[in-house]
């Protein structure tokens, strides 16, 4: 199997097939990367496209100093940072919040996903980034360190701290009651958000506490 680095070098030489193959390899992982960090599915799809547009434009400047995978997620993180800065200035309509929360996903109930998201949101932002890059993007400690510009030992200690925090979350909700426990806590958060929205004369409201963390 041709390596990712060879593919991008072939693309530099003008091979469009190489780029399409690279896209086919990474569209799923990148979509998952953005989807777990952004509320809107459509926006996540767009950001996958923008990532590859950036690759196309910057192909001539690519140096085989880091893995293509790290390179792509590096672009992804920059795009996410831009997106979050922009999102911070925009108020989200309440409908979009409830819609995004209740979106179905495969292999797990919406409540399980909500439970994971809520637990993630309670983490320190860097701990969360480290944990997600390891668990979902399957990056090595060294790659995470390179992406987040922190020492490898910091990655290890923060990852351990994040996992222990998640363990505590798990222990507070027994395994058989993950969905139930999280659903209960979610309903409380949702009630609070709705109460806030009724107090406000406007029809829009900021994200609830649980949702804000997911979009950071």
């Amino acid at each position, binding site marked *: 199997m041709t390596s990712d680095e060879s593919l991008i070098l072939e693309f530099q030489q003008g091979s469009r097939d190489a780029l399409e193959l690279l896209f086919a390899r990474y569209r799923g992982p990148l979509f998952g990367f953005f989807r777990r960090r952004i509320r809107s599915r*459509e926006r996540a799809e767009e950001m996958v496209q923008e990532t590859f547009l950036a690759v196309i434009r*910057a*192909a*001539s400047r690519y140096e085989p100093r880091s893995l293509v995978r790290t390179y792509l997620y590096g672009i992804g993180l920059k795009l996410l940072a831009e997106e979050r800065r922009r999102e911070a200035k925009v108020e989200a309509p309440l409908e979009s919040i409830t819609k995004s929360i209740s979106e179905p996903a495969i292999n797990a109930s919406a409540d399980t996903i909500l439970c994971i998201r809520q637990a993630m949101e309670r983490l320190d932002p860097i701990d969360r980034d480290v944990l997600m890059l390891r668990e979902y993007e399957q990056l090595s*400690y060294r790659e995470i360190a390179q992406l987040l510009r922190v020492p490898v030992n910091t990655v290890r200690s923060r990852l351990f701290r994040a996992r222990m925090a998640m363990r505590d979350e798990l222990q507070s909700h027994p395994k058989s009651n993950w969905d139930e426990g999280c659903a209960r806590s979610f309903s409380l958060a949702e009630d609070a958000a709705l109460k806030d929205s009724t107090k406000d004369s406007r029809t829009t409201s900021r994200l609830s506490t649980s949702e804000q963390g997911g979009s950071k």
Partner: protein
Amino acid sequence: MNRRNHIMEPDELMAYLDGELGAKESSRAAAHLDQCEQCQKIAAELRDVSQFLAGWQTEPFEANLVESVSSLPPTTANSEIKNRNASLLDRTKWLRVIHPLHWPKTAWGIAAAGILIALVGVPTLHRSRQDAARAVPILPDPVKALPPVILDSNASRSREPEGLLSAPSRAPSVSKYSGDRLDDLQEKTQPNEAARTAPVGPMIVRTGELELIAHDFDQARPKVEEILKRHRGYMGELSLNTPPNSGRSLTATLRVPETALDAVLTELKGLGRTDKELQNGEDVTQRYVDLEARLSNAQNTKQRLADILRQRTGKLADVLAVEEEIDRVQGEIEEMEAQRKTMKKQIDFGTLKLTITEDYRSELKMVQPSTGAQIRNAAVEGYRNLSDGMIAILLWVLSAGPSLLVLGAVLFFPARMLWKKLRPNLA
């Protein structure tokens, strides 16, 4: 957790479970994990956490590249296509302008444009040439290599918030441009690619040697330091010799940015008379390119091994063997990266060995002593001569006396008998 009985920290255990430890540490961790119940419990908890998090799966995304790029929102792809169309319209408008019916206007327009280009373009061209001459090649960081277009597109999107939260407006009408657009983008990358394969032209390691005889040795060192500071160089090594009855000398190894080496040489020559000058340049382009290629191959090998380790299961011995191989490749990578770094430093900074010798002038001391001093000196000299003579005689007696005594004793009796025989005859 009682850590006194533990040979490893919990996060080290986690690193072992993540396959992030080396071969030796892994075998140590595996042996410890077999015996320690507390660590087994932590390992089980960590696995539970990973299993819990694995529940968050996302929907599949099956778009292909062409439709994906063509379906970008108006703020990115479509705006560029609009710009492209606008530029096409501009070109056709220009063709209409140069129609014969518009020749008088066209002639005035061309003349005005020519003057404008001459006024603006020539200084700009001159300045850009100067900038190019001064430019130092910098290799971009892939993570930083995000093109400005994305940032611009985000900036433009921030003025249109409605299009972000709602579903993006797809534009099927632009799909026919998508292929051309991709080709355009690829074409844009090709000239840069030529520059990338030979990113810094010939890579020369420059060295030089300069020997000077300084007019003012005391000021030489501060001046050298000032020159280095101004050109962002530094002194690698310095030694100062002050031998008796000869001139002082300063020997230094200077590291100077390659672009400033000639200027530094010229300024250093102003410090004195040049006794020797030597310049050398070694072309290391081939070595550098080879090193880059070997490094890239080693990284690919390491990635493949890591994939094997992650994706395949096997016996512990096999896993350890792969980890040992990864360690070996990692060692090679680090070694080659160090070589590359050193080589890059040698290319970026020329080495100049500088020797500055003092223009030594031997001093003739003409001191006339006083009469009293002369008498005293003479008396001292006489006493010294007397004592030296006495000591010399004494030493001679002591050294030659025993031999003379023995010789005298041996010769005394034959001489006496001979004397007695000869004396009557003489008488």
